[in-house]
C-alpha cells in the first residue's frame, strides 16, 4: 500500500514541483487500514505484558522482565511504523538520520548511567544493620 500512494503523488518526489501548492498535509501512506493494523498489534503487545505480570505466568522474574522489555521495544517499532509513518525515505532520509542519532545517544545515556550507577551501588559501604531490616519491612 505504501508503494501505490507514493506513486500516486509524483510531485512529492520533486521538490520544485511541490513548491507552489504545498498544502502541508502530505502524510505518506496514512490509511485507515494502517491505523487499525497498528492498533491491533499495539493492543496485543500491550495485553501480553499485563497478562504476564497480573497472572504471574512465568515464574522466573528475570525472564518475565526480558519478555516485557522485548515486547515494549516491539510495540515502539509498531507505533513508529503505523502511527508516526517512519520510513527511510521521508524528508529525504533526514527523519531516519535524526532518529538513528537519537537512538545512539539514548543507548549511551541509558546504558552508561545504569552501568556506572550499578557499580557505584555495588561498591558502596554496606548498610548499617539497624536500617537494613527496615528496607523490607514496609
Amino acid at each position, binding site marked *: 500500500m505504501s508503494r501505490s500512494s507514493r506513486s500516486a503523488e509524483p510531485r512529492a518526489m520533486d*521538490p520544485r514541483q511541490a513548491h507552489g501548492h504545498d498544502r502541508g498535509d502530505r502524510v505518506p501512506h496514512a490509511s485507515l487500514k494502517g491505523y487499525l493494523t497498528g492498533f491491533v498489534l499495539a493492543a496485543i503487545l500491550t495485553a501480553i505484558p499485563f497478562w504476564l505480570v497480573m497472572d504471574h505466568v512465568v515464574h522466573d522474574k528475570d525472564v518475565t522482565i526480558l519478555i516485557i522489555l522485548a*515486547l515494549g521495544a516491539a510495540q515502539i517499532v509498531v507505533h513508529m511504523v503505523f502511527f508516526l509513518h517512519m520510513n527511510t525515505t521521508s524528508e529525504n532520509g533526514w527523519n531516519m538520520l535524526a532518529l538513528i542519532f537519537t537512538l545512539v545517544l539514548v543507548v549511551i545515556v541509558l546504558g552508561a548511567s545504569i552501568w556506572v550507577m550499578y557499580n557505584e551501588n555495588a561498591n558502596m559501604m554496606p548498610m548499617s544493620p539497624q536500617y537494613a531490616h527496615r528496607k523490607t519491612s514496609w
Partner: protein
Amino acid sequence: MNTTAGETVKSAAPAFYCTEEPHPQNGALLGFWIYLMSDCFIFAALFACNAVLGGSYAAGPSAKDVVDLPGLAINTALLLLSSVTFGVAMLAMAKDRGRATLAWLAVAGVLAAGFVGLEIREFIHMVAEGAGPDRSAFLSSFFTLVGTHGLHVTFGIIWLITLMVQVGKYGLTADNRRRLNCLGMFWHFLDLIWVGVFSFVYLVGVLR
C-alpha cells in the same frame, strides 16, 4: 567596454551558492521531528534516573505497593485509543472533511483528558497514602518521569483545543493542516513514550 568585460568575467566565474533555494517539502515537519528527538533525551534522562533509583525505597513503599494494575491498563487503553482516533482525524483531514476532522479530534482530546484525569487521581491517592514524591528516591524519580509525561499530554490537549478553535474559525487551511500534522506527531510520540513508561516503570517496577 569595461562593463562587458565585467559581465563576461561574472558569467564565467564559478558559482559558490545555489541559484535556486533548495526548498524542503515540509520544513516544519522535519523541524518538529527534531524537536521530538530532543524531547526523547529528556525522557531518556528520566528513564535512566528511574532505572538507577527505582530500587531505592528508603524503607518506604515499593512499586508493588503503589501500582494499581487494572487502573494502569485502563489508562494505557485510553491513550492508545486516543492515538488511533487522532490518526482517523488526520485521515478525515486528508479528505477535506472539516466537521469529521473536528469530531474525531474532540474524541481524541476527551480520551487523552480521561488519561490525565485518571493519572491525577492516582497521584492524589498516592500522596494521601504517604507515597508522595518526597518519600523516597524511587518515588521522586517515579513522579518526575510520569509527571513529565502527563504534563506533555496536558499541553497537547491545550494545543489540540487551540487548533480545534482555529479549524472551526478558518477551516482546513494549509497552515492549520501543517499544525495538525505537527500535533499528530506529538500525540503519537507521547503514546510511544507511554509504552516505555508502562513497560519499564510500572510492569518491570512491580516485578523487581
